């Protein structure tokens, strides 16, 4: 069936299909993007294609914090201005982007690349826990901030790490768990509300 489609239309079709696979891109948006690219200059499309290719070819994981990076160590680990005594543990590289965007944290990071999920068979050896422990031993780190997601998996991972790290004499803290900004109290679940009450602070 594909052989009957003229080559040009086939190429557009292929592009639409590939775009459609991207998260958040439905068939309509894929079509719109494809026709936009068709009209764009050669230079523009080449830049996009290069960017897509190099994201796979040139990026690797930082051997210290396991963030995605072009250089090893990554810019955050190399930055002399950052506070070497703090490590913030996150589930995925995107979480670093979110925290960096706040500009309210100046320490280092550690990306686990997942969370402990017993029913999915994801255990402690499937995420970068051993690497974190190796990194902490004999380091100048005095505080580990657990910033795993407030889901059951994230909580379990945080509890597990707390058990491992506390005996090293390093202070372990957890991101405050409470009401997300912009939500209404009446919709909050019991677990979130209980923790919000327990974690209340002086005004």
């Amino acid at each position, binding site marked *: 069936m594909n052989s009957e489609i003229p080559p040009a239309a086939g190429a557009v079709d292929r592009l639409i299909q590939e775009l459609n696979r991207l998260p958040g891109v439905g068939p309509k948006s894929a079509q719109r993007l494809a026709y936009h690219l068709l009209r764009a200059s050669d230079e523009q499309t080449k830049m996009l294609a290069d960017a897509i290719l190099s994201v796979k070819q040139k990026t690797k994981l930082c051997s210290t914090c396991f963030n995605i990076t072009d250089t090893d160590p990554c810019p955050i680990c190399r930055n002399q201005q950052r506070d070497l005594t703090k490590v913030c543990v996150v589930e995925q590289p995107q979480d670093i982007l979110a925290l960096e965007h706040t500009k309210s944290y100046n320490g280092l990071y550690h990306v686990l690349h997942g969370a402990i999920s*017993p*029913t999915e068979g994801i255990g402690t050896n499937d995420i970068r826990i051993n690497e974190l422990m190796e990194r902490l031993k004999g380091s100048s780190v005095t505080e580990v901030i657990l910033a795993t997601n407030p889901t059951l998996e994230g909580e379990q991972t945080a509890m597990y790490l707390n*058990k491992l790290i506390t*005996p090293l004499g390093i202070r372990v803290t957890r991101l405050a768990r409470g009401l*997300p900004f912009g939500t209404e109290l009446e919709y909050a679940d019991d677990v979130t509300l*209980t923790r919000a009450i327990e974690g209340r602070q002086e005004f």
Partner: protein
Amino acid sequence: MPKPRTYQTEAIIIKKTKLGEAGRILTLYTPHLGKIQAVAKGVRRPRSKMAGHLELLTHSQIALARGRNIDTITGTQTINGFLPLKSDLELSACALYATELVNQFAADDVEDYPVFQLLLVTLQRLSQRENSDLVLRYFELQLLNAVGYRPQLEQCVACRKPLKETTNAFCPGAGGMLCSSCRPTQPFAYPLSWEAQKALRLLQGGDYESVSRMTLTPELSHQLEVVIRNYIRYLLERDLKSAAWLDALKAQSGQANLSPTAPT
């Protein structure tokens, strides 16, 4: 007669899988619809009003809209969030094991009210910090009763004679105990002390009051865990993923108790 487009049910959330950018597919265990799957849109976004009510190990009231392939969750309210379970590593591991077992044994869309009640009461007992070994062993045997795999513990499965009050053998393939004369006919059978057989009968009997007064020595507890685990593995033809995590945590806390605190 067409079914109404929306409906409500109580449910315990027993499994979740990511769907697209911000959604999840949830497996719910309900009192009257059995095990069902439903889509929860947007629950992975921080502003989701439903996320906390749809976390694993939560008992919630859920409103759903029927879809062509899968129903969509439109509203939810927690009945019991089981906070003590979620704040304790070992207890959440125990509870996840119980939910995985229900998920494995339950067929889709088949009402089984006793199983719902059993799971609910098991989560309650775990969150009240009752002896988690007893709670889980009782849960396992009661679940096996409910789903039709009640092991035969009173008489020999081969010759049907009542068992003598001595070490006999448990044979997963035969679904119960073998007496000493029949045991050689079956290659895969585990010896089980009389004490362990008595404990299994009590657990199977269904009187939780008496069960909760049992004292388990670590050896007996381990024997029971192994024999039931092997039977379940035989029935499901696979290992339970959450059992490995439970074992890992146990091994670790065992180590921690034995070795003195590391110098700092």
